[in-house]
């Protein structure tokens, strides 16, 4: 399998939950060159994002089928260009999720921890501002679309200084 093919296979946009342990284990399974695996798991929080007003009882994640996968693949490809990586896995769920549910998984394998830590954070920061997902929160007052946060733009922008 080509390097590019391997990167693209590592992206999944799905309704189903995932097993964090399995995903982490798969990143280094059967290989002796991986010295570090860094991972991030994003979860639905009851007071998600808005921080004020009513508690969130559930949220629905909408996405743009086709573009969402492509944008995640592009982010992973960019990470491969910036760091020395041996494997990646990005899973993002869509549909209805409740507090405590997993939303997103990013796992990165490399020889040394520096590359794994940095690439994992980079992928998350870029995903937050570039991958077409939209959250709608359910509250006692009805549905409420989540507003984009400037802090996410700043988090993504700090990686540009590396160019």
């Amino acid at each position, binding site marked *: 399998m080509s390097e590019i093919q391997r990167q693209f296979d590592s992206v999944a946009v799905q309704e189903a939950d995932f097993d964090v342990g399995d995903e982490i284990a798969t990143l280094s399974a059967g290989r002796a060159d991986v010295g570090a695996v860094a991972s991030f798991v994003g979860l639905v929080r009851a007071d998600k994002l808005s921080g004020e007003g009513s508690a969130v009882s559930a949220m629905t994640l909408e996405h743009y089928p086709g573009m969402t996968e492509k944008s995640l693949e592009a982010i992973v490809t960019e990470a491969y260009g910036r760091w020395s990586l041996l494997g990646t896995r990005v899973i*993002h769920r869509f549909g209805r999720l409740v507090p405590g549910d997993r939303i997103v998984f990013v796992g990165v394998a490399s020889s040394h921890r520096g590359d794994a830590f940095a690439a994992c954070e980079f992928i998350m920061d870029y995903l937050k501002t570039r991958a077409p997902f939209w959250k709608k929160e359910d509250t006692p007052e009805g549905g409420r679309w989540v507003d984009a946060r400037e802090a996410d733009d700043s988090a993504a922008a700090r990686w540009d200084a590396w160019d």
Partner: protein
Amino acid sequence: MSVKVLYFANLRETLGYSHETLTLPAGIATLGDLRAHLAHRGGVWEALGEGRNVRAAINQEMVGPDVAVADRDEIAFFPPVTGG
């Protein structure tokens, strides 16, 4: 020139459409032209008006207003993304 236009999230709800196929009148060359053309429908379509925080993609690539539109393009309008 005919294009497919998709709308997502609160924009889809506001407009009441998830997609439409449009035959564009002469004079629409760029994404910005198309957006202004749609906003000109008035009413709920003013959600696409100047100054509104709307992002767009052509053929599933996020692009700016100066990019040219071509026959059979898939064009999408949506609010800033909030995944992760």
